[in-house]
Every structure is written in structure tokens, then in C-alpha cells.
């Protein structure tokens, strides 16, 4: 790949379009995004890579919302302290959201920015969509 856009360069570039990956509600109300590969990205990124990113995001959100011993313990402890415990400690969900933010930044730096794409953290869109900004590809002649 001859394009060597970094995350800094992208801020100067012009936006060509935005693609939105919608939520997948087939498993209920849990946070899960559709793995379907959008047609607009076909010329930009490898399908497998994209699917892997979305699948990892889905797994991370599933971890945040998982019902199990740990979440029940946290819930009971919180209730007993009249929820004041969250003044000093973060909820499990918030911890996983930070992990997700880091993952997205990492993916942007390593994979998406060099291809002229930018992933937006879904939490900034109310967990409705994964917004992928496609930047104008200036070095298209080098392909």
C-alpha cells in the first residue's frame, strides 16, 4: 500500500462519505453490530479484516453486558451501599468501554488510518451505529 496516511494527516483530509454499520438485534437488546460488509468499503479494506474488527467489538460489548457471578456481586454490593460505591469505583461496563475506546484507537492507528478510513467509537453515537468515515483518497494513482 502506497498510502501512508497517519491519524494526523486525516484531520487535514476531506471527507468523501460516511458508512454506518447498524445494530444487530437478532439476539435481543444486547449491544451487537451487524457483521455484513458494506459495499462502499469493498475497494478500501479487506472483508476479513473488517469482520474481525466488528466481531471483536461485539465480543467486548458482550463482556460488558454479561450476566454472571461478577455482575451480580457488583450489583448486590452496590445495592447494599445504596449505590454510593460508584462514587469511588467504576462499574464493570465503564471499564470495558475504556477497553473498547483503546481498541478502536489502536485499530485506527494500525489499520484504518493508513487506508484513509476512520472508525468512530459507537458510544459517541449512542451505541446506535459504528460510523466509518471514508476520506478522499488523494494518492489513488499509486494503486
Amino acid at each position, binding site marked *: 500500500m502506497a498510502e501512508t496516511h497517519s491519524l494526523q494527516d486525516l484531520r487535514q483530509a*476531506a471527507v468523501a462519505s460516511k458508512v*454506518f454499520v447498524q445494530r444487530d438485534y437478532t439476539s435481543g437488546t444486547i449491544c451487537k453490530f451487524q457483521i455484513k460488509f458494506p459495499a462502499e468499503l469493498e475497494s478500501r479494506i479487506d472483508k476479513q479484516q473488517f469482520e474481525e474488527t466488528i466481531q471483536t467489538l461485539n465480543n467486548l460489548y458482550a463482556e460488558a453486558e454479561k450476566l454472571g457471578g461478577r455482575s451480580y456481586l457488583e450489583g448486590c454490593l452496590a445495592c447494599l451501599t445504596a449505590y454510593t460505591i460508584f462514587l469511588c469505583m467504576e462499574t464493570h461496563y465503564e471499564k470495558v468501554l475504556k477497553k473498547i475506546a483503546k481498541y478502536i484507537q489502536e485499530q485506527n492507528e494500525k489499520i484504518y488510518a493508513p487506508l484513509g478510513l476512520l472508525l468512530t467509537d459507537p458510544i459517541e*453515537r449512542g451505541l446506535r451505529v459504528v460510523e466509518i468515515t471514508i476520506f478522499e483518497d488523494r494518492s489513488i494513482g499509486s494503486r
Partner: protein
Amino acid sequence: MTGNMHLGVEEPIRECQYNQICTHNSSTMDTPHTKKKKIKRKWQVFPGRNKFYCNGRIMMAKQTGVFYLTVVLILVTSGLFFAFDCPFLASNLTPAIPAIGGVLFIFVMGMLLRASFSDPGVLPRATPEEAADIERQIDTANGPSGPGYRPPPRTREVLINGQTVKLKYCFTCKIFRPPRASHCSLCDNCVERFDHHCPWVGNCVGRRNYRFFYLFILSLSLLTIFIFAFVITHVILRSNRTGFLSALKDSPASVLEVVVCFFSIWSIVGLSGFHTYLISSNQTTNEDIKGSWSSKRGKGNYNPYSYGNLITNCCAALCGPLPPSLIDRRGFVQPDTPQPVAQTNGTGACPSNQVQSHMT
């Protein structure tokens, strides 16, 4: 610009520098719609009909009169109980009575305030690009329509655990509502897992504050029964010594407490019972009223969200993970993102000026 959003550390610095640029270089800024003397927080530009207090930390509905009534009723009744009945009960029966009453009272108030002041699970409205994208998808799905042809309602069907669920499009928020979400007309917001709008609590009851609401009505039932029982005990014990009428004269507050508690018990205990049923079957008030999952609708109709097990349903509703607020009330409003290529390049230059000013 979206890359900047992750670097939370830079935000306070940006705020100071942005103000400086505005006042000194006003002639070079060619986008008056982004020039602001003061950076606003997101709650100040929130499109719904909510009221915010404490710089965005507290969020309530527009009409809060009934909420103040609730607070006054609880405070006055409990206050009278602790002032007039507890001294007698503590000395004649056991001091555990005011102690337990005190714990219950604090828990009730805590849960009430938590239910009233939190974000119930409001879904932020779609950004203009998202809305345009969805419109395009709907138009291609519906096909071309001639003049005078009314387009079919905007719905999407999705299969959840074997049940077909219709997702409706919200014209106000410009999104397809997730399953179980509903638009509250009083607050003008779409709320996740919308239960109902409670005027007593002064807020919607949704995904994020349902457990506080339930614990509030449950503990309030216990408190009401507790006060009712012990006020009656107090009056009876006094009557044994001094006769019924003089007992009432010695402790007039007890009459008021009994009356308030008597009328409250029916409604609050009933409501607690109803919500216990809803929790155990994992339904919302909204779904129950509409009969969404009732067997009357059809033979194969069942609730796809229920875990099948009463205990799991209860645990999930009360002890499950608490999702964070999606609306970021206290965040700062970001300057406009870069325009699409179709627009003039002038607007493209402006964001880069701002970026360079942050670097200095």
C-alpha cells in the same frame, strides 16, 4: 476531529485557547456559526424536554410538581413518626424500632432521588448524516412512489429468539427504535426499555433507573406498612393506659399518619406487587398494557426477552450491569466536524486552523 475526542486530557487546554482565538483573531474566523464566546456543555443544547440541575449532573422531566409532593409526603409522615411516635415506642418497646425505621427511611429517600435524578436511558438523536443514511435505505426499500401515493409506515422486522418484532422509526429522533424502546411524549425522548413516565418520581422509568424505581416502591411499601403498624401499636398501648380518646389527644400526629399510610398502602403495595410480576416475567409496563406478549394475541406468542427462569429474570433486572448514560450530559459541545467534499473548501480550511491552534 474524531481522533481528538479520545484525548480527554487535552480538553481543558483547548477550552482556554479556543476562547483566546475568538477574541483576538475574530477577523480571520470566517465561520460565524461556530464562533462562541463560551463553550457549552451538551446538556445546554439537549433537544429533549428535560430539566437539568447541578451543571448537568441531575436530569428530570419538565413537570416536577408531583415529585415535590412525593418528597413532602414522605418527609412529613416520617418526620411525624420519628418525632411523636418513636419516643414512646423506643422507651416502651425497643429502640430498634426507630433504628429500623431510620434505615428504611434513608433507603427510600436514596432510591427516590436516584430514580428521579438519573438518566433513564435516553437515546441520543441521530446525527444529520445518520438520518440521511437511514432515509436513503428506507427509500430504496420502499421503491419509487408516484404523486398521491402514501408511503407505507417505516418499520423493520427483526427475528428475536424466534419471535418477529417490529422496529418502528421515530420521526422525532430520526432513528429506528431498538426493541423495547419507546418515545416518551412528555420528555420528547426515545428511552431504552421504556417502562412508563412516572409523575411521582418526576422522570421516565427506563433501563437505567428501573431498579431504583422498583427498590423505591418496594422499600416505600415496607416503610408505609412499618409506620402504619407501629403507629397503631402506639395508639393501642396508650389507650390501654389512658383510654382511647385521650390517647388520640396526646398524640394527634398519629391520626394524620394513619390516614396517609392507609391510603398509600393500597396503591403502593399494589404497585410493588405489579412490578414484581413484571420483573419476574421480564416485561415492561408498556408491553404489559399493550399485551405485546400475551397469549391472547396468538398461539405462538411469547416473550422473547425472558430468560425463562424467574430467578434469572429478577437478578437480571435488579443486579445486572448498570449501563452508562449515552447522552454525555456534561461533555463539551465539539466544533463542527469537516464538511463532505461536495461543500466548498473554505469550510475544510477552518477546522485545520483550529487544529493548528491546539498544537501551539
